[in-house]
């Protein structure tokens, strides 16, 4: 039960290979923080520095008020769940979970009590005497969680724990992890490349790219107010539409349409961003419309996505599933300008 602070943290392997650049994040006590980003963005390295598996080149990492830069991994009072689970293959499920407690020289009956407790929470009671190889992927994953739980650590670190599970199990485990977080009332730091996991599980999300922190915020904040082009494109499926525009005062002119902007911006070039759900078959409040030539229609039952072009730009629209559209059709769609974004052409930072 502790907060975690990354204070100007840098990880450099050689002079020109820097994988984490000036990372500053405050993770609150009992928070579920998700570090998300494409592979190679430095999120795992950030986690491993906190775990004590990588040295910190510059800056400070604090757990609570304690600077842990030079504290050994075992003395940081953290537990980590690995992507590969890293179960000890020659030990039974019970011994796997008891191992960290034995390392603390805990009394036998206390170990027994804690492991039993964790196995009850995770539904592992019937498997305590089995070896990991006799378990399914989901069960192994729970043993890995159990091994972390028994220690009642200050901070839980999870490094892509769901990526080896199949889609259905991943969905279930996502929910179980959130329940677990509520029950344990501990700080969780969760690394993933999957923005769906990040959006569904995180109290807050920290989005990283190329070793640089892009934005920290609640799922709603990063979805509705992305700080820059990268965040806007990374969060949300299907991805946000990006259309190059020329701006003057409060209008943005693209090759195929014109949109009114919610506030005036300096004249120049930019990128207009709007999510598929802002481009629909409903009339928009301010009457902005767009003519789209449909190339592909995707019917998902609850949704219908249209992929097409307007002028020289490709766009995706989310329309009523009952709307009858075929590839090749030209449709008139309404653009809800209340939820559009404009990004600077050079810096890629968001104006709004």
């Amino acid at each position, binding site marked *: 039960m502790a907060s975690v602070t990354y204070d100007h943290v840098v990880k450099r392997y050689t002079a020109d290979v820097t994988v984490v650049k000036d990372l500053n994040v405050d993770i609150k006590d009992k928070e579920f923080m998700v570090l998300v980003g494409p592979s190679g963005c430095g999120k795992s390295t950030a986690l491993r520095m906190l*775990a*004590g*598996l990588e040295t910190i080149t510059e800056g400070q990492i604090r757990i609570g008020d304690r600077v842990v830069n030079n504290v050994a*991994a*075992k003395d940081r009072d*953290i*537990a*980590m769940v*690995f*992507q*590969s*689970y*890293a*179960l*000890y*293959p*020659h030990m039974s499920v019970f011994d796997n979970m008891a*191992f*960290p407690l034995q*390392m*603390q020289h805990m009394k036998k009956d206390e170990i027994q009590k804690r492991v039993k407790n964790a196995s009850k929470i995770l539904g592992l009671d019937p498997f305590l005497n089995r*070896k*990991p*190889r*006799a*378990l*399914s*992927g989901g069960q*192994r*994953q729970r043993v890995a969680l159990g*091994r972390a739980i028994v*220690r009642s650590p200050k901070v839980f670190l999870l490094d892509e724990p769901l990526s*080896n*599970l199949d889609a259905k199990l991943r969905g279930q485990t996502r929910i179980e992890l959130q329940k677990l977080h509520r029950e344990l009332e501990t700080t969780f730091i969760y690394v993933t490349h999957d923005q769906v996991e990040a959006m569904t599980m995180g109290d807050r999300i920290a989005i990283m790219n190329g070793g640089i922190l892009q934005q920290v915020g609640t799922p709603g904040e990063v979805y509705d107010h992305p700080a820059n082009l990268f965040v806007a494109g990374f969060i949300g499926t299907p991805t946000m539409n990006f259309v190059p525009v020329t701006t003057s005062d409060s209008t943005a002119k693209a090759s195929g349409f014109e949109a009114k902007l919610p506030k005036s911006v300096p004249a120049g070039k930019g990128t207009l961003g709007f999510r598929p759900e802002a481009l629909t078959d409903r009339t928009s409040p301010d009457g902005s419309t767009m003519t789209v030539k449909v190339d592909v229609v995707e019917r998902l039952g609850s949704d219908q996505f249209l992929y097409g072009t307007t002028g020289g730009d490709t766009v995706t629209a989310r329309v009523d599933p009952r709307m009858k559209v075929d590839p090749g059709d030209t449709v008139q769609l309404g653009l809800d300008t209340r939820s559009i974004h404009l990004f600077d052409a050079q810096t890629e930072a968001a104006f709004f």
Partner: protein
Amino acid sequence: MTVAAATPTTSAAARFSPAWILERISRWPLHIAVIGLTAAWMVPTIGLLVSSFRPFSGQATSGWWTAFQNPTTFTLSNYTDVLSQSTTNLGQAFFNSFMISIPATVLPVSIGAFAAYAFAWMKFPGRNGLFLALVGLLAVPLQLTFIPVLSFYVQHLHWTTDNLESYGIPGLPWVPLWLAHAGYGLPFAIYLLANFFRALPSDLFESAEIDGAGTLTVFFRIILPLSVPALASLVIFQFLWVWNDLLVALIYVGSTASVAPLTVNLAGLTTSLGQGSNLLTSAAFFSMIVPLIVFLSLQRYFVRGILAGSVKG
């Protein structure tokens, strides 16, 4: 029901398909090579076995393959002689061989395991250079070391068999030989184990580190249990090498009956004129029993897949 009935039909159809036949034929060269090699290795052993049941007169005058024309000449006398004659001193030699082989196996395997762990998972300056030098040692013929090592033992430490026996401590006369075998065995032991340890998933060590396990705990509780297949094969190699060794034992402990191993004893059965070579055949088979037991009892540990279930789903 229909599904169950359909299964044998399809497999029967596949059994004589062109692809199936082609696959069978393409395996023949491999089978022939394996069988041929096995036969080539087995023939001398079978010859020895047949000879060991022939009297000295037969062995001296004709080849072992002619023995089958006249099976009545087969005899057990070679075995009864070698076991009963007090001059052969087989019991003492057998005991000596064990006293030499067991420490000379345990020493290099245990030291090698520690060293291999360091080479595989600990960072220290010069690690790669040292490892390379070690691999280079594999190419050094051990005969090169006899004179320097022996003169060091004898001139500086005064470790002769007589001297060491005079202390009256059991086992002491074999110390030079144990150390020599350990030295000769270590490069290969470290090389084999370091490669095996390196292949263990690093997540396991990192996980253990976070769980609070120190270096030694990781070694004893994680690495050693997972390395049983590698350790077993190494134990077999080293034990067989030491058990069958004649030269090293002859150099470092000589042929004094109280300390000489079975191999030295067997070599002594034959005189320079070839007298007693009939005993050699049966004694050789006698000495083979132990390696066979060691191999058969440890071979089940060769199975890989002990890591199954540790990582990935």
